[in-house]
């Protein structure tokens, strides 16, 4: 793997260079419209002219929006009788333009790999993945709500990043993680990183691995029935207001619903974010709802992340970014839920 040395001035120049050929995004630190043709919610398009500012901890919005847009048009059609396309459903013209997302944190980069497990055969997710490059910055500081180390990640991790920037005394060392990353640095006159800095980063990572906790992994071997019937769910479900805030801000919540929308005879089939917190999510056509109670829906979200998903795919479906911990209106804290689950006899 190639490791380069980049100064802050060179970083600005790189972003300017990328913005000539690609769409370049950086985290927005002020409110951004949730739906707008030219930007992704929580992110803003940049041209490298201003300095990149990153807040401590996860970016305000997750990178989910680039791979799993809200909404995504799957097919289009017309209801006009005389139209030659009448009765046909067409795939919309998809943008092939590369998008370069700058300022991604290691937690979010891992979330893309995790979502990729259920979406391995999803053509839309995969197409978005092909055209998106993630340029990440490892974390020198964490927030009190960060718990990536418990979930199998690391604040210094480069997993899932095409380019991973880590701070050094006078700039960054940059690990090139993929062919997409390679393409982003091709043609730029960048020096290889000093051997001493590479060793220093490896040593910091080693220390991080030792400090991280793998206690949660024992959940994977636990009997589902006991976790399912644990007494913790009743009070938790009672406090939960069943809004979709946690699922929508979560980088690893990937559920969707599909609908047809017709405006003035022109139709589109869209898929949009759904939330297992909503009763409609699990409502059957018969009228029966297998998760008709609030407590069942609350339990489902946590057990999906901590039991069903790992049983099926291996890792937990949570990267420990702590966004839900910060923003839950009723302070439901997944860290507390994990501890309570571990305590289940």
């Amino acid at each position: 793997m190639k490791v380069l040395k980049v100064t802050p001035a060179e970083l600005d120049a790189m972003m300017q260079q990328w913005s000539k050929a690609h769409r370049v995004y950086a985290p927005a630190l002020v409110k951004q419209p949730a739906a707008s043709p030219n930007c992704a919610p929580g992110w803003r398009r940049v041209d490298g002219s201003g300095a990149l500012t990153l807040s401590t901890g996860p970016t305000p919005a997750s990178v989910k929006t680039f791979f799993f847009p809200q909404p995504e048009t799957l097919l289009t059609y017309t209801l006009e009788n005389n139209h030659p396309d009448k009765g046909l459903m067409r795939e919309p013209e998809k943008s092939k333009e590369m998008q370069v997302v700058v300022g991604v944190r290691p937690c979010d980069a891992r979330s893309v790999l995790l979502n990729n497990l259920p979406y391995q055969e999803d053509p839309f997710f995969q197409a978005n993945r092909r055209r998106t490059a993630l340029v990440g910055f490892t974390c020198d500081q964490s927030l009190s709500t960060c718990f990536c180390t418990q979930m199998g990640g690391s604040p210094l991790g480069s997993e899932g990043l095409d380019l991973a920037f880590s701070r050094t005394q006078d700039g960054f060392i940059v690990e090139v993680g993929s062919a997409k990353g390679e393409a982003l640095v091709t043609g730029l006159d960048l020096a290889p990183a000093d051997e001493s800095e590479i060793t220093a980063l490896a040593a910091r990572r080693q220390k991080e691995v030792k400090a991280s906790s793998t206690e949660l992994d024992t959940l994977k071997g636990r009997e589902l029935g006991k976790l399912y019937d644990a007494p913790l769910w009743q009070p938790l479900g009672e406090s939960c207001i069943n809004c979709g805030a946690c699922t929508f801000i979560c980088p690893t919540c990937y559920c969707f619903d599909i609908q047809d929308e017709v405006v003035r005879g022109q139709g589109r089939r869209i898929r949009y974010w759904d939330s297992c917190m909503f009763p409609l999510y699990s409502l059957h056509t018969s009228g029966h709802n297998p998760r008709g109670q609030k407590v069942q829906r609350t339990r489902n979200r946590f057990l999906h992340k901590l039991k069903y998903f790992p049983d099926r795919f291996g890792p937990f479906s949570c990267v420990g970014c702590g966004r839900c911990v910060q923003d839950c209106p009723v302070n439901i804290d997944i860290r507390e839920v994990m501890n309570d689950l571990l305590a289940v006899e």
Partner: protein
Amino acid sequence: MPTINEIVSEEIRAQARKLLEEGTVAAVIGYAAGTLPMTVRPLVVRSPEDCSKLIWNTFCVLNLANYLPATLKSVEPPRGPRDPKPEGPLPKVAICATGCWSRNIVVQTQEHQVDRDRVVVMGVGSRGMVSRRKVEAIFSGKEILKVEEGDHELIVQGADFSETINRWSVVRDNCQTCTHPDPVLVDVRIGEPVSERKPPNPFIQVEKIEQKTVDARWAWFTEEFSTCIRCYACRNACPLCYCPTCFVDDAKPQWVGKSLDAVDTGLFHVLRAYHCAGRCTDCGTCETVCPMGINMRMLTKKLNKDVLNLYGIEAGMQPDAPLPLTTYAMDDPQKFMANEVAPVPSMAPATLGHRGPVPGSVKEGK
């Protein structure tokens, strides 16, 4: 010396324990401490031992009345949907309530969602609740790790700072313009009563928007609601929203689109606000719980103003009065009615004849 809220907390715990031990109530709705600074978690306590978890502080921003109907149901003996109501009185539930929350309990009673006889209101005079967002904005870019609360100040601490700020300066907007901080229903008084407040103009925030031109108002509306992610936290945290199926969740027919189209989002917010007209107590929970910081309370506040001006009614202030928008009075303002002196379109027989018979009307003979 203990702070006012420490005294209130102690009284809540003592009264809750007493009510549960005596068997007066089967459950108490209150707050437990949160895991982060400036957060609390609504909690339903069912045993005297758990009462030690109850707390009261200046961050109790969620309207507990939202939990009342479900908690009342949860303490009833289990029965099938077609089983008759059991004989004798059903178990009661105690709830901590400030001015606005108690007014919501009045509205819930008026709307037959709650049986007043089954509720024991533990009335707490509100001193105004603090907006976590306002505090975070002051310390933007720094992580707040601890907030200590005095009666009139907050000591905000982080890894490398500790600052004292004035409490009232970060109290939520709705609390700053609140006129009725003391509960209108009190079965068990907690702490000292709080007197009525007279803010110079309770609708000042709304009037700032009203004074804008139509274009500027539209720009405000578009911008304010553009970040909505449709998580429905505002709806779900609201004690007024108890429809079994909300209009946004209806699939047959579907009233509102599901994507983030500005028209759909705007429609949701406007309709939600109108559903709250004459019922909203301006408790501010909708605004508080929004993860995107949208100021949707301005819509309901505007309607509160209109209902007050048109009918002279503030929601939940008169337990025995009917709800303003479900009743009709002869002297109700009706500016929307057509003016009687306006010319009435002529219904000359010739015109009717020209149009021919109305489709579907019954024809006599052949």
